[in-house]
């Protein structure tokens, strides 16, 4: 090769690099906060969650001070109630779940060899929603308005406005808002893991972290929606007096317990699995060998994910359900110990087979697992109904759940912090401080929580703010308090280590632990994730593909350039990760912040019943989301294909099941469908608990209901036809069908409304009209969204942004209509026919 050619290619390489850097660059100044890059969002998300954790930890220390000695008057009863409620709520909803979303958003793209998550703006939206909702919920305690009925908000205490005040509304609305953020994150994770892996990363080569996260995201989709449905019923009762949980008018507080724990128990595993996923990355690195039993870990992750949905009633063993029901759940609770144990044995086997380096992350990982195993064993005890009847609502359960959560989640997360900290700025945390922190936390934890088993067995109920001296709880509580402060000291050492200025510390090497997975290739100073998207041929590419790092950084693989000025990544096939499309993702934008803040404002205004403010905020949010969709999604590319390097040319546009947007809609609607199923469950639940669940009230008019179902089916058929005609270039017919479908939908909604309206069903009178109304309103709200989508497609078609070849919007809307059809048909046939059939 001549020197001139070499020189030209060097220049070309520099130019490529510069273009790529510019496209992925962060804005500066205050606009920095409009960044949507996964690196920044992950960091903000994690820092916010960690801060909320410290806040909730401080509340715990206040409680421990109050309980240190008998007959203490340090805190008032009401403040104590607020403190334990907020402690549980914040730890669960604002720390344990979001921290994993943070870690996932931060780590997954580089780990999968991708540049970004498929929907970076959705990730940013999720963060801002979480941040605002979190501040709102936490801030309430400074106004003496925090929720005070316990983190699971049992009615009738929490539905009583006199006893629970505005705190319960803050809990319901603040957390519903955060649940939306979690579901958004789940959509992002599933699509990211399934469709955006580096070429060649077949599912048998996927990092275990990704396997775990895939399962967890799936679990979120089926676990969070029942709680959203429950929140809806709860808030309707508090705001409009619809008696879902009021026994006097046919309601039942137990329905809340079912809906809460259908969410609440999988939640434990939603928290645990990502933490154990971190351990699954750390153990091979410090054993310097591949994991032993990769398939067994997949078994454990998938098995736990499923079984965890068969456990919820073990929180309700003391509620008087038939013993056979209790026994089913007891059996499943014992069965889940099998996959959980498998993972522990896999880790032990990996350590035995390799040469273990006992670093700080390993210390936290191993210490956490030891604690977790103790919590798991007490879990097997309380999963037995007769033992649970003795231990229920005592400190034994408090000890159990802290052993599980701190051992299974907090310790692994700190292990992950020590392990992954160099990714932030190529600087390690201090090994000495790390070991000090570990021993303080490990000893402090056991000193604090082990005695709680004993105080529980001695009969100390959870949530008491005071106890007398002579019943034998005093010295156990004093020890617990001392341990809590030792534990807190350990946490503070971690915080100090993470925050202390490190500018004198030199930057270290890129892969300081000699790990084998791809995330260790990304350079902290660059924002592009990977310089070029590699071809992966191993589970541990950095160990097995020797020149991989060099070739990636020399831009020898896919998409080393950004010549059209877009942020681009690859979409690959699910099983074998063959490249199929170039995905252009959204860049820096204000619209995510505006949407999240206005949605948050709507929820907050609703809490205080400021109706006009709620309406204004909701309209702002609606407009922001429409603007976001119109300007940032389903863009028609300037050319059909582009050269991605290595002689490969890929399409820039795909619609239907080939597109990531279609999958996002499908996944969202699965979650939405689960929430709907929870409401239907409520309907039949009320049927089972009453001899006549209609209480003699005339039900919705059958003819109107069936007419509504039929018209929704017609509207759906018109939508399917519109998609078909659009593909056949019949644009005018497409537009006509869209208008016709929209009008049919409006008619169907009117008919649906007439069903319960014509017999004058009053939702405040009894639970039967209330549950009928809520089902009808659910469908009508979805129909309203459906009409907006129809109008949007029409506008896109008129604006030339929806064409016969570029029909992402229409495909996604038709998919939405499939789900709407199912919901409408189920709702109107049940409410119209079921009471008569009984």
């Amino acid at each position, binding site marked *: 090769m001549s020197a001139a050619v070499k020189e030209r290619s060097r220049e070309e390489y520099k130019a490529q690099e510069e273009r790529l850097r510019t496209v992925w660059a962060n804005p500066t100044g205050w606009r920095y906060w409009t960044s949507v890059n996964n690196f920044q969002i992950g960091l903000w998300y994690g820092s916010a969650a960690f801060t909320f954790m410290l806040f909730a930890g401080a509340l715990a220390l206040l409680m421990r001070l109050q309980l240190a000695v008998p007959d203490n008057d340090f805190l008032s009863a009401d403040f104590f109630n607020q403190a334990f409620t907020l402690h549980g709520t914040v730890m669960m909803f604002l720390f344990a779940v979001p921290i994993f979303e943070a870690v996932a958003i931060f780590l997954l793209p580089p780990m999968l060899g991708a540049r970004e998550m498929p929907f970076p703006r959705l990730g940013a939206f999720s963060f801002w929603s979480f941040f605002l909702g979190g501040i709102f919920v936490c801030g309430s305690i400074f106004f003496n308005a925090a929720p005070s009925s316990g983190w699971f908000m049992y009615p009738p205490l929490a539905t009583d406005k006199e006893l629970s005040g505005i705190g319960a509304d803050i809990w319901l609305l603040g957390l519903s808002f955060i649940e939306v953020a979690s579901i958004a994150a789940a959509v992002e994770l599933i699509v990211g893991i399934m469709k955006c892996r580096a070429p060649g990363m077949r599912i048998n080569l996927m990092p275990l972290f990704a396997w775990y996260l895939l399962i967890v995201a799936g679990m979120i989709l089926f676990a969070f929606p029942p709680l959203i449905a429950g929140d809806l019923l709860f808030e309707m009762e508090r705001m409009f007096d619809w008696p879902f949980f009021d026994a006097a008018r046919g309601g039942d507080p137990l329905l809340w317990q079912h809906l809460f724990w259908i969410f609440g128990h999988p939640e434990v595993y939603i928290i645990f699995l990502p933490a154990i996923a971190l351990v699954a990355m750390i153990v091979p690195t410090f054993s310097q060998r591949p994991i032993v039993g*990769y*398939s067994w870990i997949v078994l454990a992750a998938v098995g736990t994910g*499923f079984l965890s949905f068969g456990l919820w009633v073990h929180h309700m063993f003391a509620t008087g359900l038939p*013993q056979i029901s209790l*026994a*089913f759940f007891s059996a499943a609770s014992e069965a889940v110990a*099998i996959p959980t144990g498998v993972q522990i044995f896999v880790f032990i086997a990996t350590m035995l087979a390799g040469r273990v380096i006992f670093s700080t992350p390993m210390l936290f990982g191993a210490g956490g697992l030891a604690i977790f195993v103790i919590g798991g064993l007490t879990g097997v005890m309380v999963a037995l109904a007769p033992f649970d009847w003795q231990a229920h609502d005592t400190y034994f359960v408090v000890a159990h759940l802290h052993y599980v959560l701190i051992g299974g989640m907090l310790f692994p997360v700190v292990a992950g912090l020590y392990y992954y900290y160099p990714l932030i700025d190529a600087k390690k945390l201090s090994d000495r401080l790390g070991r000090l922190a570990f021993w303080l936390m490990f000893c402090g934890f056991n000193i604090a929580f082990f005695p709680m088993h004993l105080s529980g067995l001695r009969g100390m109920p959870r949530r008491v703010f005071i106890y007398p001296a002579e019943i034998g709880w005093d010295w156990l509580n004093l020890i617990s308090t001392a341990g809590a402060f030792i534990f807190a000291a350990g946490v503070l050492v971690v915080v100090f280590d993470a925050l202390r200025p490190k500018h004198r510390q030199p930057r270290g090497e890129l892969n300081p632990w000699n790990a084998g997975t791809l995330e260790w290739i990304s350079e902290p100073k660059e924002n592009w994730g990977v310089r070029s998207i590699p071809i992966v041929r191993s589970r541990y590419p950095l160990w097995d593909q020797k020149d991989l790092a060099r070739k990636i950084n020399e831009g020898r693989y896919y998409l080393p350039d950004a010549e059209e000025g877009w942020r681009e990544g690859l979409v690959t096939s699910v099983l074998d990760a063959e490249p199929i499309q170039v995905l252009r993702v959204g860049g820096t934008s204000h619209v995510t912040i505006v949407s999240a803040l206005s949605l948050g404002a709507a929820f907050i205004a609703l809490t205080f019943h400021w109706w006009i403010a709620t309406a204004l905020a909701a309209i702002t949010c609606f407009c922001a989301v429409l603007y976001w969709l119109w300007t940032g999604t389903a863009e028609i590319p300037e050319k059909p294909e582009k050269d991605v390097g290595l002689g490969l040319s890929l399409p820039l546009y795909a619609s239907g099941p080939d597109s990531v947007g279609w999958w996002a809609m499908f996944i969202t609607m699965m979650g939405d469908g689960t929430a709907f199923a929870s409401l239907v469950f409520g309907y039949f639940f009320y049927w*089972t608990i009453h001899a006549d669940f209609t209480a003699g009230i005339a039900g919705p008019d059958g003819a109107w209901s069936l007419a509504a179902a039929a018209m929704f089916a017609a509207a759906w058929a018109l939508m399917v036809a519109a998609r078909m005609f659009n593909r056949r270039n019949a644009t005018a017919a497409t537009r006509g069908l869209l208008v016709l479908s929209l009008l049919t939908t409006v008619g169907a909604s009117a008919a649906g409304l007439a069903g319960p309206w014509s017999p004058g069903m009053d939702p405040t009178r009894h639970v039967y009209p209330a549950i009928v109304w809520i089902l009808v309103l659910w469908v009508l709200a979805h129909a309203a969204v459906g009409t907006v989508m129809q109008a949007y497609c029409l506008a896109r078609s008129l604006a030339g942004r929806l064409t016969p070849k570029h029909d992402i919007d229409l495909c996604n809307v038709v998919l939405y209509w499939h789900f709407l059809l199912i919901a409408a048909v189920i709702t109107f046939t049940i409410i119209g026919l079921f009471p008569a059939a009984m």
Partner: protein
Amino acid sequence: MRLIPKQIETLWTLFTAPVVWAAHFLVCYIGAAVYCAKPELVGLSFNAVRAGIAAVTVIALSLIALSAWLAWRQWGFGTDDPPHDDPTRRDRTLFQGLATLLLSGLSFIAVIFTAMPALFLTECIR
């Protein structure tokens, strides 16, 4: 018509056995709960409920056994040993087969666990 399905290229088969477990669990739980809430509805004895649970358990176990056999076939009838970490379509398929087989085993045990209460409980006591 072939009795045994052809091998297909999809991720979803991985979840067959756990889905059967979930369906079995729901049928048992809902069936027993509705019976105990409204025993007059069908006019059968609790022993009929137990027989029903036995029947769905046999069906569920058979389906899981079938899923296990298909997984075993996908795993090449165990001719290759794990870790199945070569970057080939063949190793990816073998991995899927093994993972599906393991999940079938777990689901089989879990279904038996779920059915066991029906052996011991003879009425709807609360």
